[in-house]
């Protein structure tokens, strides 16, 4: 009788789940994810239907103004400036819609640089292009960018290891 009492008492206690190991895993995962979230970089694609080409380049992207060429539209930063279908009808290399959007940003950067001497307008732009973009369009974008005082052009790519 006396022996059965502890057994029955143990039975009455609520079963406790040992979560220590899981909490450990989650804490590590949480720290890792928060870190990767913070170090994600500056390149975020504005458009959904956009696949960058892959390259072996390992240069880190910089925080610049971005021009995004998706399958159907052209973006400057997150602003949709033109539809690709409309651009085909424009003669010449210069794209007025893109040029205007870039000019607004140049003016803004110049204004900031005028008031704050630690900031200088560097004319850097990063192009995020879909991998199927024909070269003719890319050339027009690059031409418009350099005509709008963005002379330092970088192409954004997915980094992949060298296969050989």
């Amino acid at each position, binding site marked *: 009788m006396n022996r059965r009492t*502890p057994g029955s008492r143990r039975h009455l206690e609520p079963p*406790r789940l040992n*979560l220590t190991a899981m*909490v450990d895993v*989650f*804490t590590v*995962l*949480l720290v890792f*994810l*928060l870190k*990767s*979230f913070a170090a*994600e*970089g500056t*390149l975020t694609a504005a458009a959904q239907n956009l696949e*960058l*080409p*892959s*390259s*072996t*380049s*390992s*240069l*880190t*992207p*910089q925080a610049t103004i971005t021009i995004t060429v998706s399958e159907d539209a052209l973006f400057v930063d997150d602003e949709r400036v033109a539809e690709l279908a409309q651009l085909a009808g424009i003669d010449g*290399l210069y794209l007025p819609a893109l040029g205007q959007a870039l000019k607004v940003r140049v003016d803004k950067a110049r204004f900031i640089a005028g008031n704050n001497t630690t900031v200088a307008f560097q004319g850097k732009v*990063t192009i995020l*292009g*879909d*991998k*199927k*973009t*024909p*070269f*003719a369009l*890319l*050339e027009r974008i*690059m*031409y418009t960018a*350099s005509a709008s005082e963005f*002379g*330092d*052009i*970088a*192409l*954004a*790519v*997915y*980094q992949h290891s*060298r296969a*050989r």
Partner: protein
Amino acid sequence: MLGRLAQGRRRPVADEAIHIVALWNLMIILIPFLLLSAVFSQTSILNLYLPPPPPPGAGKTPPGAPTPKPVVSIVRDGYLVSDGPTVVAAIPLDAEGRYQARKLTDLLLQVKTSIPDRLDIVILSEATIPYETIVQTMDASREAVVEQEEHREAVPLFPNISLGQIGRAALAAPIDVGDRE
């Protein structure tokens, strides 16, 4: 007496439990959110080299400039490599219709040995060539991986890359390879 002793012994055991319900809730929310927003593919950039503009009034660069400049033309049928005014080689598409970037690298390695100081290259392409092909070509002309004594080494070829369209006067390099075909 015995029962009280047993109770007294059990209490510290019951106090061991830490209240982590709040932490738990936080994690349950945060982890799916961060997993969703995490980007596991690494992005990098390729820098373009824009040649300095010619002084005003200088006109077009005369053909056959003194120093030969390597030019890779991407045409529909493959690569065309020219070294200054002369076409060095043509690399056709492979059997599956892909551009042979590896062969281009090998060829440019040979070109590099004759002009070791040059760092710039012009890549000309046709209007319809997809961006991905251009990036592959840029990769092939940027650096070569040479196997040396059981380890691989990246040898820079022509890292200053300019782009242009075949047969376009405004952006064309000293020569128009397109006219040559």
